[in-house]
């Protein structure tokens, strides 16, 4: 029985691989055992790689011959179903007949493979990344609740200890929301830091590729592997790529922590608010300087992201609308794609003007702060099939509530991470969000790692057992 091994952070697995205390073949077997044990219930995977053991054997040979490529070498990872892969089908979460994508590796998958990672399969996503529940995937902390989305399969797979790392994509929060709801780390890098070439588009100027992982360090290792300019993606920026692992284990004395008291602190569940305030107090007590501020312009952000996301998605699906493939989409996604026609050209451009103002306002704020801290989501995982939630006496849709605190960082294109910062009264994970300046993932990771190593949240695991019944928290 090797399936306990796979639920460990990459640093530990990499050390064991280099010392010959385990093998990549064992780790792949461990992941597959874990899938067999729990994924019948979780349904986090849609496809498994038939050649994973073969790649693992090659990794073992290379490592034993002294050809270690880095922390990901020989480590099993999963990728979201909107990343093209040459040896597995890509469906982007749809089961509509007549839609298939070309079999080739996306740039991120190619870079992961070059770093020695072993791709073991593809994770379930909300259809075409247009939603945040990822049916029928279940949350490992409570299988009656959603894992979030649209990268819900990746969140569930990492939280359940199937893989230490799974790739996601984030257009309005689709990496950070499942990370928050499933109790994992989720990193949305700066727009342009990581190539989107070969990732099925949802909204070109909002889409970001990035990892979900067990720890902050694991996300740093993934970013080291996948970051960089790519001629295949005109959105990537040819800027210097630092060693993101240098952000780990750094002091935070004097780090200026911004706290945006409007928008991010309005209408949060009680448990979420308490955990995030405690996190802010921790930063202050650790020598950081906490600087509160307000950004009234955020009141206009929801209209802006809807205008861009709806019109972009409808433009992308023009062919699927014309040939009526859209009629086989799930109804919630079909409605969103159809309604994009109702957004006018001036609305779209006004939203892009708004983005410019938002970016300028944030640049002004980032002259005084190094990172901005707040909740990732105002609520914890909600019951499957529940479409509204009441927070602070106000009823709103779960869709509207769940991405309220994440989409500003997509509009601005800034790096943002979610990491666990506690549990609510029902034993459900709470996410802390830390955002930074453009291409300053180093300070985001520095603050996140400082918080993580001062707490034991990353060591808490849902005790989902064979057959899928979750027994709750198992620290």
């Amino acid at each position, binding site marked *: 029985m090797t399936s306990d091994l796979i639920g460990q952070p990459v640093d530990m697995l990499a050390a064991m691989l280099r010392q010959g205390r385990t093998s990549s073949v064992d780790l792949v077997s461990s992941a597959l055992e874990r899938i067999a044990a729990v994924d019948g219930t979780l349904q986090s995977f849609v496809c498994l790689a038939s050649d994973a053991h073969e790649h693992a054997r090659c990794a073992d040979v290379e490592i034993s011959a002294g050809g270690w490529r880095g922390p990901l070498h020989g480590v099993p990872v999963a990728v979201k179903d909107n990343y*093209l892969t040459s040896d597995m089908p*890509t469906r982007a979460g749809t089961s509509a007949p*007549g*839609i*298939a*994508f*070309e079999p080739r590796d*996306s*740039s991120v998958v190619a870079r992961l493979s070059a770093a020695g990672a072993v791709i073991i399969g593809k994770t379930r996503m909300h259809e075409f990344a247009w939603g945040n529940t990822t049916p029928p995937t279940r949350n490992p902390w409570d299988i009656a609740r959603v894992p979030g989305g649209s990268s819900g399969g990746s969140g569930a797979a990492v939280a359940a200890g199937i893989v230490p790392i799974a790739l996601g994509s984030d257009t309005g929060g689709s990496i950070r929301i499942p990370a928050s709801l499933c109790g994992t780390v989720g990193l949305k890098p700066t727009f342009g830091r990581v190539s989107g*070439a*070969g*990732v*099925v*588009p949802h909204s070109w*100027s909002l889409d970001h590729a990035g990892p979900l992982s067990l720890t902050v360090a694991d996300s740093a290792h993934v970013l080291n592997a996948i970051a960089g300019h790519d*001629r*295949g*993606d*005109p959105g990537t920026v040819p800027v210097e790529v630092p060693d993101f692992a240098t952000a780990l284990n750094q002091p935070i004395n004097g780090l200026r922590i911004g706290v945006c008291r409007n928008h991010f602190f309005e209408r949060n569940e009680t448990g979420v608010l308490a955990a995030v305030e405690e996190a802010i107090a921790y930063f202050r007590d650790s020598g950081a300087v906490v600087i509160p501020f307000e950004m009234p312009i955020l*009141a*206009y952000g*929801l*209209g*802006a992201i*809807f*205008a861009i996301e*709806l019109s972009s998605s409808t433009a992308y699906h023009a*062919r699927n609308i014309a040939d009526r493939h859209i009629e086989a989409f799930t109804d919630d996604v079909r*409605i*969103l794609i*159809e*309604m994009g*026609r*109702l*957004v006018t050209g001036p*609305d779209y*451009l*006004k*939203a*892009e*003007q*708004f*983005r*410019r*103002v938002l*970016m300028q306002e944030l640049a002004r704020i980032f002259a005084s702060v190094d990172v901005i801290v707040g909740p990732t989501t105002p609520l914890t995982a909600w019951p499957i099939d529940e479409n509204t939630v009441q927070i602070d006496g106000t009823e709103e849709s779960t869709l*509207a509530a769940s991405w309220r605190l994440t989409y500003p960082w997509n509009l601005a294109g800034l790096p943002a991470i979610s990491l666990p910062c506690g549990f609510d009264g029902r034993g459900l994970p709470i996410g802390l969000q830390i955002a930074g300046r453009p291409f300053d993932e180093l300070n985001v990771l520095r603050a996140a790692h400082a918080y993580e190593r001062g707490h034991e949240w990353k060591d808490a695991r849902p005790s989902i057992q064979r057959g899928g019944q979750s027994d709750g928290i198992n620290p």
Partner: protein
Amino acid sequence: MQNATDETDELFEAIGLDLDTERRSVVLAAFRPIAVEIAKLRSLDLGDVYPAVVFSPVPGMAEEPKETR
């Protein structure tokens, strides 16, 4: 003289929303709260602000996923 239904049909045809009446009602109902948010955005005076999307004459080399059918 056109009646209101004809004009509505023409408007939907003009924006390229080819849906039957029942479906159109469903989409409009779902759009209503979003329209409120977009109306807020319209109320902002941003006339002098350059949009974040900037045109470049250099052709991109996008390798976007191609659907195969």
